């Protein structure tokens, strides 16, 4: 017998080897399927029904819906714009109506790329596979997960029609900004229903599921538009639209519904509210319990707060001369509390929630600087028997500190003015006098007053507490100053009035209880002094900006201009504003001058309060019965004679208190 020609021998080897490999692969695949099946998740009877869960609703103080939590509003395909359906098919899976769950050619190509081109990943998931992944699997990347996802997709195809699958898919995909499902997305981004979406809008939305954060049009509009153009191009390539239609659509820039940026966690207030609700009821109840929450926030005030802070921070950018687009930029926070109850009416925790979710209003502990002095003065009145007419001397002060170097506080501007009454000292925020007061009362008395007013942040038992060296949050400052506005009555701040279950049964109801923590007359004396701060002192920007209602407040600036505060109140609303850099760095204007609370925060306060109180009747601060007023000389503290009236000042005195060095507390 002649030996077999070489080529035929090779052919025979390849043929039989191939047969063996194919048989082994088939057997292996069957084994893998049988092995995996028991571990696959069970499918619900109707894939589109299971995504419906009850939503928890948050209402604002006027009963308007602020946010729906865990919402998955399902709409039938017939109520979705055909342009959107075409756009999503073109983008995600243009052969959706041809395949049975997997696109074999794309899968083989993706497999080849994954295996033989390290570093490159090519997606081949069909809409059905994406649905299977979203409904049943985590986002863990593994071959096992991918294989299971593929099997589930095959089962979905075998048990549901294409329309049912597509409907389930578009109702559960995430578009970003808290929008799950096409109906919610259309409403969140454009304020309309899914049926009303135009081609430019539909294409924009169809581009988002690939990366909802990266393409979030509220934050990265240009990026989202580029992605939209890509979607339009794919629609042309797949024959859904003509080139002309694509060009027409590309020429239009869809208008976003700006106010919806605040929906869901787009708002610092809602974020704080949800955080608190979760603490009380747990995540399950909050997101899946269908509870109704009646929040304290007033949408009108919240909008004003956001605008005022944004405007104020833009002005700061200009003042500091930060070029557009350059970071870091100064941040800010604003909290407004209803003085009579403690209800938080507006809360903004930063420039833009989408850029930074850190809530500075409730979580940033920053030094209040001179903003802490009202607690020092109150403590001096309460424990040392001083009053607004008590005379002290603004002079260099050295206070011995046990175990450390002496404390030598300096005034802002490094000058000393000599004798003055305490009202003048607070009005002009004189550090040396605040230091002398804390030396007399002791830091503990100041800490105690601050604690009574609701300051919960750690406070150190040191003299420098008088100059606000302990970090506090804007929420704490607003709460504490509203105690003065209330003549010593404290109300803890709160974010919601009532919580009900889905059937209206009450789970929680807030009751307001006055707790008298400070002496009313002494509190009024501090209020009267803080009124002078706004009228003639470091906070006079308030009046200069046109806020003419009766109000009181105190500026605060830290030594190196890291923090600029203004906390102030009318008889009904107490607002605290903080501005500064997240990573502590000085705020100085283009001329190198430091930005104080009066320049940085007070204009924001005034802007907000002007809008917030527009249309409200003007109210004056109530005066306790045991308060009388005296016209005194601001230097000697003695009663002003007829000739001294022009340069005199009016002080509030409690019954039993006398002026001119004859204090009888």
């Amino acid at each position, binding site marked *: 017998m002649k030996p077999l020609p070489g080529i035929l021998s090779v052919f025979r080897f390849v043929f039989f080897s191939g047969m063996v490999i194919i048989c082994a692969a088939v057997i292996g695949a069957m084994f893998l399927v049988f092995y995996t099946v028991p571990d696959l998740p069970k499918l619900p009877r109707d894939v589109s029904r299971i995504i419906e869960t009850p939503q928890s609703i948050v209402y604002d103080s006027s009963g308007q819906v602020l946010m729906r939590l865990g919402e998955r509003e399902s709409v039938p395909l017939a109520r979705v714009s055909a342009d959107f359906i075409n756009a999503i098919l073109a983008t995600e899976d243009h052969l959706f109506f041809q395949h049975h769950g997997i696109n074999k050619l794309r899968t083989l190509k993706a497999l080849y790329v994954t295996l033989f081109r390290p570093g490159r990943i090519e997606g081949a998931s069909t809409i059905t596979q994406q649905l299977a992944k979203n409904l049943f699997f985590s986002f863990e990347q593994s071959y096992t997960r991918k294989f299971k996802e593929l099997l589930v997709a095959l089962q979905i195809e*075998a048990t549901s029609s294409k329309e049912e699958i597509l409907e389930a898919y578009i109702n559960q995909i995430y578009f970003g900004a808290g929008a799950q499902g096409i109906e919610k997305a259309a409403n969140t981004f454009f304020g309309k229903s899914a049926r009303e979406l135009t081609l430019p809008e539909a294409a924009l939305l169809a581009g988002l599921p690939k990366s909802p954060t990266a393409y979030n049009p509220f934050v990265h509009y240009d990026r989202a538009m580029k992605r939209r153009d890509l979607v339009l191009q794919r629609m042309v390539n797949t024959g859904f639209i003509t080139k002309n239609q694509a060009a027409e659509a590309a020429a239009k820039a869809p208008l976003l519904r700006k106010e919806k940026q605040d929906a869901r966690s787009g708002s610092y207030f809602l974020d704080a509210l949800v955080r608190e609700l979760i603490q009380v009821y747990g995540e399950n109840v909050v997101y899946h319990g269908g509870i109704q929450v009646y929040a304290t926030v007033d949408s009108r005030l919240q909008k004003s707060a956001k605008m005022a802070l944004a405007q104020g921070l833009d002005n700061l950018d200009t003042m500091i001369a930060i070029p557009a687009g350059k970071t870091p930029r100064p941040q800010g926070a604003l909290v407004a509390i209803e003085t009579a109850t403690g209800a938080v009416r507006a809360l903004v925790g930063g420039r833009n929630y989408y850029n930074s979710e850190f809530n500075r209003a409730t979580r940033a502990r920053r030094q209040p600087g001179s903003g802490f002095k009202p607690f020092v003065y109150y403590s001096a009145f309460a424990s040392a028997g001083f009053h607004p007419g008590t005379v002290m001397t603004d002079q260099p002060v050295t206070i011995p500190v046990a175990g450390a170097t002496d404390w030598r506080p300096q005034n802002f501007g490094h000058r000393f003015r000599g004798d003055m009454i305490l009202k003048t000292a607070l009005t002009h925020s004189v550090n040396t006098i605040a230091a002398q007061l804390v030396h007399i009362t002791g830091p503990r008395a100041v800490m105690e007053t601050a604690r009574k007013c609701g300051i919960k942040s750690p406070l150190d038992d040191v003299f420098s507490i008088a100059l606000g060296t302990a970090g506090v949050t804007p929420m704490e400052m607003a709460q504490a100053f509203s105690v003065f506005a209330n003549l010593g009555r404290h109300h803890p701040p709160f974010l919601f009035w009532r919580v009900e279950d889905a059937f209206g049964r009450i789970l929680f109801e807030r009751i307001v209880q006055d707790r008298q923590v400070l002496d009313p007359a002494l509190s009024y004396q501090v209020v009267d002094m803080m009124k002078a701060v706004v009228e003639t002192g470091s906070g006079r920007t308030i009046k200069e900006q046109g806020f003419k209602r009766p109000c009181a407040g105190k500026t605060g600036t830290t030594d190196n201009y890291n923090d600029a505060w203004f906390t102030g109140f009318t008889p009904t609303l107490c607002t605290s504003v903080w501005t500064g850099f997240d990573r502590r760095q000085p705020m100085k204007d283009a001329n190198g001058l430091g930005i104080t609370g009066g320049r940085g925060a007070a204009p924001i306060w005034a802007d907000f309060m002007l809008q917030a109180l527009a249309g409200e009747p003007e109210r004056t601060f109530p005066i306790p019965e045991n308060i009388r007023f005296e016209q005194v000389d601001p230097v000697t503290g003695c009663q002003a004679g007829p000739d001294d009236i022009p340069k005199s000042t009016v002080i509030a005195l409690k019954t039993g208190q006398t002026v001119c060095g004859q204090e009888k507390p």
Partner: protein
Amino acid sequence: MILGWYEPVTFQEWIKRTASFLNLGLLIFSAVVFFSEFRYDWCEQLLGNFLASTNETRPEKGAIWELGKDTINAHQSLNKIIDRKSDTRRFAHKAASFSGISARLIPGEWVILEKEQFKRLYLSLPLTHARQIMEPARLIWLLNGEVTDRIFCEGLKNGMKIYFINAENRVVQHIDLKENTLDAIAEKQYLEPGRLEKFDGFMGRIYPAEQFFKAVFKLPQEMIPDLLPDTDLLLDQEGTILRIGISNEAKDGFIRLGIEIQHRNQPGVLFVRAREWAVWQLGLVLKGEHP
């Protein structure tokens, strides 16, 4: 058979064998299988139907099932809260005393009381204790005017707090009821164990019962109810009244009287409040200065 097999020796032989009916059949079958799968996706359908047939035996797991379970858990939690509230409300409405409600409420838990319910519980107390909780005149103002909208009871660690709330959800009045006070009322243990000397403020102002009451009856008839307003409590006591002490401190127009009672060889003191001006008159009688 296999032994008779030989390897083809010529190319023609190879072609002949390759193109045999069996081989061609196998090839065509394989091609049909392969291309029909691409055309009709029968493999996916077959697998899909097979998986559907095993559906009921498979576990309910994965994100969407977890979501469903979370929803069920959330409803269970809410129902638990609501059920507890309903039970507490039912219990409170049937309760015969404040101590009954207090025992039921866990710290932080609250229940709403009807005005009538509060009134009923208040009136069930001995007048002396009812007065200690709240002056009847104040209660009339709170309950019979438009001041109070609702009454909240909130459980504390050692008792409960009762809030009278107006229509604006603002507390207009609140009462702290301590557990030991409620227990004493419930068990009618009004006597503090010990003799008068054990308590501050009575030294030098302690009188034997006979001397005290003789002096009382020397006062004008209309003055006696102001001196001994809590007669219900005194009449309710078992044992013998031995001595009466008059406190040397006045508060809000009242002076405390300590009445020492001996019961089963155990001395105890019952405290009542008397009008300051009536006690002053009594003092004159006791000193023999009364006209």
